[in-house]
């Protein structure tokens, strides 16, 4: 079978010097001369900075003057400027998907700073592949869908509650689902918190009052999310309350399911012994009592804090980031209640970042002593009558071994991911190696997930302070509101497509798709059909099709083969 000859295209190619980031290591002029000879290339230029306003204007003008129907820019990684040049194409009246970005900086000039000839030859191959892809590109239109102006928030801690209030205030209805019989989350169980001395229970109560004032928020306590159906911007979720399931239409979903405090193994640093508690338990003791400290029916005259329990070890290499400041703060509260209290902080490193450093100083002023032990030299804990005996080698005292007898040992435990398999399965949430949920990009898209329509916020993303949890809750609300206020959502058109005439209806692709985006259409002979609004564009259905009937837009079989051929081709010396 011979493939039909594709019609002639008119492609413009722009090769960037990137100041010298590319041209110091790649002979850009030679690249331009080489690709100018390629079929369908009608414009080939070099530019000092293709992303500059001047070159962008030049490209826009070329599109009109040369009647371009394809565009290739060879510059940096597509992570940086793919969106920029898609926009340039659009400004020139060209469909953005007729544009291809070629990475000759990160993956060429910067990699081969030691081989100018090799880098130049490689750049030519890469640009040829970009031309080959563009030659076979077709215009794609983002799918527009009308959205349901209501959001679901899962989790009624501070992050979820603040998010719900923010959404209600911009006119979006909210269904707030909470597993427990009351709102508030972890913060509701806390007394005075750092850094501004507000009590956690009061903070939660204030947010609950705000929620009660807003008719747009429906609170569903003792409830869990059981099911999610539908497509981007228009989901139907099933919420179960005390055995009864009801269905709600929502356009966006925000997950704010929080964390669990690490619970040490029995015997881990004496946990389980009388007088040994976790930071969470100690915080509760402080919150629920006043006056001189008492624990287990006895007066407490000395406390030791052992930092990083359950963190920064082999099993959990991460730092939980809030616990140093929380423990320092707890010791200040304890010292104020009982100035005679003797307090010892046994730490590996101390990370009281930002203003929390002032609390560290304050704790020392109030009499706390800090002892530093080595990473491989953990303190040894044993019972000593009604007290706890702690032996520690203090690096700050020339490695001298000290034996402390204290009434209370506080294991400074951090935040761990909450295990919630049902929610993960229902929403297909991306779980990171550490067990917390993953955002798309920690800096640029910090609350969106790879699952369209589902955002995450608060400590379900990783250890956070209450302030940070609320900030991310507001970010998630802003993102959800931005989608829902517009009323329509644009979906990425690089999705799977089925050539119906080649499909045998075997259903392999249906079971390969984890997003339920492919269904077999009923009929005399069933055919697979892709729901473009549910397809995420992973392409996992493509190789499983025994008839080669599925393609991923932007990565079609003919395009990939042409790119491979172009890259394999010889480059004239």
């Amino acid at each position: 079978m011979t493939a039909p000859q594709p019609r002639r295209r008119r492609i413009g190619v722009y090769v960037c010097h990137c100041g010298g980031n590319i041209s110091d290591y790649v002979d850009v002029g030679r690249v331009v001369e080489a690709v100018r000879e390629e079929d369908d290339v009608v414009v080939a230029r070099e530019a000092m900075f293709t992303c500059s306003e001047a070159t962008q204007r030049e490209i826009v003008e070329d599109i009109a003057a040369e009647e371009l129907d394809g565009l290739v820019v060879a510059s940096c990684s597509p992570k940086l400027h793919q969106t920029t040049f898609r926009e340039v194409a659009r400004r020139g009246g060209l469909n953005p998907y007729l544009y291809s970005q070629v990475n000759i900086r990160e993956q060429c000039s910067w990699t081969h700073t030691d081989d100018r000839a090799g880098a130049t030859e490689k750049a030519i191959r890469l640009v040829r592949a970009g031309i080959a892809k563009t030659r076979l590109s077709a215009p794609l239109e983002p799918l527009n869908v009308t959205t349901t102006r209501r959001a679901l928030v899962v989790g009624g801690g501070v992050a979820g509650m603040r998010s719900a209030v923010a959404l209600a205030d911009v006119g979006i209805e909210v269904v707030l689902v909470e597993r427990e019989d009351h709102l508030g989350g972890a913060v509701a169980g806390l007394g005075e918190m750092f850094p501004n001395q507000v009590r956690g229970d009061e903070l939660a109560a204030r947010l609950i009052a705000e929620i009660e004032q807003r008719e747009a928020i429906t609170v569903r306590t003792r409830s869990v999310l059981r099911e999610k159906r539908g497509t981007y911007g228009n989901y139907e979720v099933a919420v179960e309350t005390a055995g009864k399931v009801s269905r709600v239409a929502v356009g966006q979903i925000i997950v704010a399911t929080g964390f669990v405090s690490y619970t040490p193994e029995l015997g881990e640093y004496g946990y389980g012994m009388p007088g040994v508690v976790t930071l969470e338990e100690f915080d509760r003791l402080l919150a629920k009592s006043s006056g001189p400290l008492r624990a287990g029916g006895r007066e407490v005259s000395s406390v030791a804090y052992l930092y990083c329990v359950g963190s920064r070890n082999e099993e959990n290499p991460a730092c939980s980031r809030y616990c140093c400041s929380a423990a320092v703060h707890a010791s200040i509260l304890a010292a104020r209640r009982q100035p005679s209290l003797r307090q010892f902080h046994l730490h590996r490193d101390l990370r009281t970042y930002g203003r929390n450093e002032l609390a560290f100083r304050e704790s020392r002023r109030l009499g706390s002593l800090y002892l530093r032990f080595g990473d491989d030299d953990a303190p040894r804990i044993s019972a000593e009558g009604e007290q706890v005996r702690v032996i520690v080698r203090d690096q700050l005292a020339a490695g001298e071994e000290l034996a402390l007898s204290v009434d209370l040992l506080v294991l400074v435990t951090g935040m761990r991911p909450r295990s919630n398999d049902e929610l993960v399965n229902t929403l297909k949430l991306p779980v990171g190696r550490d067990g917390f949920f993953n955002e798309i990009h920690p800096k640029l898209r910090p609350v969106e997930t790879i699952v369209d329509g589902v955002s995450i916020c608060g400590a379900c993303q990783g250890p956070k302070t209450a302030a940070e949890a609320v900030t991310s809750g507001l970010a998630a609300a802003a993102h959800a509101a931005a989608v829902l206020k517009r009323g329509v959502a644009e979906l990425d058109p690089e999705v799977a497509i089925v050539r119906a005439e080649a499909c045998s209806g075997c259903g392999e692709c249906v079971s390969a798709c984890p997003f339920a985006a492919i269904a077999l259409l009923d009929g005399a002979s069933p055919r697979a059909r892709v729901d473009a609004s549910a397809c995420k564009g992973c392409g996992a259905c493509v190789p499983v099709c025994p008839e080669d009937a599925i393609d991923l837009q932007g990565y079609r079989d003919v395009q990939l083969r042409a790119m491979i051929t172009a890259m394999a081709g010889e480059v004239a010396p």
Partner: protein
Amino acid sequence: MLVFSTNLISDPGIDLAGSSHLHYDPGVVVLSVPCTSGIKPAWILHALREGFDGVFIAADGDECGYLADCSARSARLVATAQELLATEGIDGRRLKMTAICSVCAEPFARQVRAFCDSLEELGS
């Protein structure tokens, strides 16, 4: 050598290798797709027939944002590709897959150099 990378996971790792000026042979070119599980075994065969000496799949592994079982799926694809290469009489050692994370710059450069060396031993 042709490298298949993925837009969100291994391609950023390969970018980082470049930003860190970690050198490897300029005969190594990278083709990025959304997800390892979307690579057709036929593309691998096509590459080797077109003159590439080897194909290296810089896989998403457990970090894949689309598929929880991406590693298992891509392992199946590689197995299928190996069968395909065997029927074509192509040495299976010309195909290699390793998970490359989004910050795995050094491991990528190391793996690619080692693979280049092993391809050199196989000859063209």
